[in-house]
């Protein structure tokens, strides 16, 4: 880890993280990695190396399916809880850690209801409060101007890029501390992709971001830190400039320069 990161504040830290899928396949092997507050951290690596598996550990998504097993810890700050501890309720974790999926997955409901859903789940009934937060979240996702006159329209009538920004608004509405993105632009055209990248850049003022991407330029453009994963292991982690300019590990270099993956 570079020394010049000492002034950074930790938001989360994986310690000795192992993960086993149902069949016993070990998808993550002894991962140790810091995630810094109000920074964008990119996860890169060839297909099947465990990026999604790692990302989905942060909001305990694996708990939805039987038989999956974690070992090790993900410490979460400032309160220093272990997100993976059995006594920590996964629902509590998901209330603090938001997620945006690879394919836009709006609910077949109105635009308004999509964004308000997380608040409703938290028991918010006050109409004024809901209206305010929905607007704030849609502005945060740079979607407000496009949809403000059609909040009651079905979300499925939006374009793919708008749907993805709607999903970002849905995640933002509940003020998460950490936001997970799993290849959020892989289903989008270059213009929609550009909009999302700009948004990620804007959002890091409010929230810490962990983003999986297959696109090297994207990682270089949006992230402050980059981690390279290979076959379930964390090969290299560092400042994005350093990883892309002079990677320490031969495998990282091969991947970044396109000799592999």
């Amino acid at each position, binding site marked *: 880890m570079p020394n010049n990161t000492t002034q950074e504040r930790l938001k989360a830290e994986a310690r000795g993280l192992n993960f086993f899928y149902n069949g016993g396949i070990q998808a993550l092997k002894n991962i140790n990695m810091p995630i810094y507050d109000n920074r964008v951290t990119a996860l890169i690596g060839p297909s099947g190396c465990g990026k999604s598996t790692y990302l989905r550990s942060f*909001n305990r*998504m694996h708990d*939805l399916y*039987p038989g999956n097993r974690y070992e090790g810890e993900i410490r979460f700050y400032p309160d220093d809880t272990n997100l993976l501890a059995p006594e920590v309720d996964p*629902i*509590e974790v*998901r*209330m603090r850690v*938001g*997620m945006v*999926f690879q*394919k836009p*997955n*709006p*609910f*077949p409901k109105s635009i308004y209801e999509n964004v308000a*859903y*997380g608040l*409703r*789940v*938290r028991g918010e009934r006050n109409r004024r409060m809901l209206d305010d937060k929905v607007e704030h979240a849609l502005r945060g996702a740079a979607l407000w101007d496009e949809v403000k006159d059609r909040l009651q329209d*079905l979300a*499925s009538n939006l374009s793919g890029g708008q749907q993805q920004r709607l*999903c970002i608004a*849905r*995640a933002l509405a*509940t003020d998460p501390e950490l936001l997970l993105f799993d290849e959020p632009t892989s289903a989008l055209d270059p213009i929609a992709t550009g909009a999302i990248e700009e948004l990620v850049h804007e959002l890091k003022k409010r929230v810490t971001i962990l983003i999986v991407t297959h696109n090297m330029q994207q990682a270089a453009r949006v992230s402050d830190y980059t981690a390279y994963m290979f076959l379930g292991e964390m090969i290299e982690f560092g400042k994005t400039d350093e990883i892309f300019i002079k990677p320490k590990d031969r495998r990282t270099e091969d991947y970044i320069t396109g000799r592999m993956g």
Partner: protein
Amino acid sequence: MKPLTTEEIRAVIARGKLKDTLFKALGILCLAFGLFVIVALILDMAIKGSERFTLDFFLNFASRRAAQAGILSAWVGSLLVMFVTALAAVPLGVAAGVYLEEYAPRNWMTQVIEINIANLAAVPSIVYGLLALGIFVYQFGFGQSILSAGLTLALLILPIIIVATREAIRAIPAMIREGSMAVGATRWQTCRYHIIPYAMPGILTGVIIGLARAIGETAPIITIGALTFIAFLPPAPLTALPDGGTAGLFDWVTAPFTVMPIQIFNWTSRPDPAFEINAAAAGFVLMAMVLAMNALAIWLRYRMRKNIKW
């Protein structure tokens, strides 16, 4: 291998096309046969029973004289029994289906339950009748009533509703469930706001198919002792009774009753051929009820699916 010449390619396509045409013709033939049989049956009943299609036929009770006999107690009985059946079977079936899909752990217990639901669907309806005679009629003391009949048919269609619910839930993409859980929803919130509403078109279709099956059931209803000749209606809530009292809200559920298929069966077993006209007319009415239910199912499904796109 040498590349094919244009003529050869055309010959190959022509051979393929011939089979295409043959299969298409066969398919249309099979379809036409099925349709022909059903249309012929309905038309036959309609023509035979045509002279009975008057308002009186629907408003008269059964009678010893064929020309005066009507289906009032039968169609009212059928509707009331269906109402009780739906009221009992829908919540039970939907809850069971949601539990199995969303909550149940995948272990041998669940497996056993799943296999047994499939078995339940295959149990002959007369067996449900015997079971209900023992449990609802005698054990619980519901008597030979609309309530007993409704609950019996509810048991009969429960597996259909459970299976329909599960199929409908399985058609919902996992990413919708994950999207809901990812903002911190509980399983129940996910079911209440997403799974059940999105599964509703499929569930409703299953419910109506189940009810359409139940409305034609005869054997279990006879087994629990429905009357074959009845000249009064169940007491409507809050109306005056012949003995001077007022009917309670739920008195009708314990009333004796008859249903359409029993009325039809009763008429066909009379020696007087005039009753066959009644039977045909009532058969047509029953058929129309079933078709109307199916039409309703199709319409509801269309209406509700319009807004559900992934």
